[in-house]
């Protein structure tokens, strides 16, 4: 107490008191005001859409137009739904480095919270596939993996390879590997058909079948044993042949040189 009273006449005392008062009022406002504001506004959803719109204006509007109506640089987003936004932004494909038929995956710079806001805004433009919940893309049945394998070979294997290792398309485009892809993103890709991938809507591939495919892809990437040992990327005869020629033959040549270079003579020359 002594110390406090001793400093009461300090020239900065008034400033400190003022700061205290400001912090206290600000804190009180922060604690009470937003709740009141949310009640005053229609819903948390519309707040989200508003915030999404702001994020959209900064990150997306230069290609997709201020209201997502599209431009010569990017397609209209009316009706693509929140699942498409969650996939494209969540995998870092959007914002794209450059527009084109193949937008490669890169590091995602948005938080899931921001992605949800963006998705809410885009979903408000027109009805479309909705971001799936966890129980929508998680299969529960025990035979899901084997059924998923069959569906994968019918619908996906032609582009993504029989193990999901990815493959080449026309003119430099490619179907990416599915190995480290989030389950939710695999599901969303089937729902929305990103870039050149065709979509597999619920009308032709029901939710349950998509779950089974997701289960199979996860199993392939994480648990499936590899009967032969070295998988060499599971790309088939091309990598195996290349490996045989370069490493197999290379090793044999190296051994031959080593054998010939080591003399067995009693006297080294």
């Amino acid at each position: 107490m002594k110390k406090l009273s001793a400093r009461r006449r300090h020239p900065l005392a008034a400033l400190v008191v003022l700061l205290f008062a400001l912090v206290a009022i600000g804190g009180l406002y922060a604690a009470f005001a937003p709740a009141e504001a949310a009640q005053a506004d229609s819903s948390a959803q519309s707040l989200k859409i508003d915030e999404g719109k702001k994020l959209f204006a900064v990150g997306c509007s230069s290609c997709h137009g201020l209201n997502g109506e599209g431009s010569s640089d990017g397609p209209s987003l009316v009706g693509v739904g929140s699942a498409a936004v969650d996939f494209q932004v969540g995998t870092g494909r959007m914002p794209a480095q450059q527009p084109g038929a193949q937008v490669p995956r890169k590091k995602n710079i948005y938080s899931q919270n921001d992605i949800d806001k963006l998705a809410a805004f885009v979903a408000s433009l027109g009805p479309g596939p909705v971001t799936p919940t966890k129980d929508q893309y998680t299969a529960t049945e025990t035979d899901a993996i084997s059924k998923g394998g069959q569906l994968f070979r019918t619908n996906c294997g032609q582009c993504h390879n029989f193990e999901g290792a990815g493959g080449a398309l026309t003119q430099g485009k490619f179907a990416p590997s599915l190995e480290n892809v989030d389950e939710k993103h695999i599901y969303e890709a089937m729902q929305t058909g990103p870039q050149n991938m065709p979509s597999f809507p619920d009308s032709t591939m029901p939710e349950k079948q998509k779950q089974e495919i997701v289960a199979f892809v996860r199993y392939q990437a994480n648990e499936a044993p590899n009967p032969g040992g070295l998988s060499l990327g599971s790309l088939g005869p091309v990598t195996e042949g290349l490996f045989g020629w370069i490493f197999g033959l290379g090793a044999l040549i190296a051994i031959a040189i080593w054998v010939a270079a080591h003399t067995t003579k009693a006297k080294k020359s």
Partner: protein
Amino acid sequence: MSHDMSDDKLPQAHDASDAHGDVAVTDNPFADPGLPAHQPRRTDIDERAAKRAERQVSLMFLVSMLATVGFIASYVAIDPDKIVYIFPLGHISALNFALGMTLGVALFCIGAGAVHWARTLMSDVELPAERHPIEADDEVRADVIEQFKTGAAESGFGRRKMIRNTLIGSMALVPLSGVVLLRDLGPLPEKKLDVTAWNEATPAAPIRLVNMNTDEPLKAEDVAVGSLTFAKPGPSASRPAGLQESDEDFQQAIAKDALMLIRIQPDDIKDANSKALGFEGVLAYSKICTHVGCPISLYEQQTHHALCPCHQSTFDLSDGARVIFGPAGHPLPQLKITTDASGYLIATQGFNAPVGPSFWERSA
């Protein structure tokens, strides 16, 4: 055989110049130095080293034998479905690992043993092999040419043009008999590829398009723009239950009947004919490549290109599946589709061209 390594046992190293006598260096600075002196190997002069090498070689052959026995034993003993974890390789089949390892060791030891044997114990005396020019001398050559000319003159080959030309003709034709034998690779497909299950469809008895995934008939509104769906024929007169995977001839049938269904905004369809065969932008194409018949379905929904993975034939599905790249000779056959009263997609006639690869009797 009790030899010791000692200096007097070393074979006399002979001087290189001995082989060719004295060479006057001043006359020819690049004189042939001859063979270097033969150097004995340790195993040549030390019987103990030789014995050791012998034992090493036999040991390797013995290991190879054991590995072969191990190969047979693992083939018999290991359950083919057993998966084990082996460090850098991960979860792998125990049988594959055992077979590969034992066979590898067996072959490697034979090779290594043979190399070791050749290097330490087989004779390594240098043997010169002299080289001579390979052509005959002028006299012989002149004689042969003379004889050839005489022979040609006697046969009248140059004079009797008819004989010469017919001979050339007959020689040229002989290889054809080999080509004709290729016919045995047949039988030719005849009309088999002209006829698919869809041919049974008529306006009176249409065939529904059934989703390969769900086994349910497809409605036109199920097929969204940008989506890709695979379909097979539904119930028909000869197959009342529709094509089922349990059918005995399923593989044969699906190899001709498989469809890929896409939907394009009607305005984006470039080929009027193809547009007419579809239903409100839903197009049904054969899934079988017209090059040599691989199943194709690498469909890109923005470019509308379908790529064949076998030899990269590319078809533009928005333009009547025209071939825009690659070896395929024909566009993909298209199926005329429409809907029935309840909105299900149906076919009322067969494909507009024979499915699958080109062949001699192909009608279109």
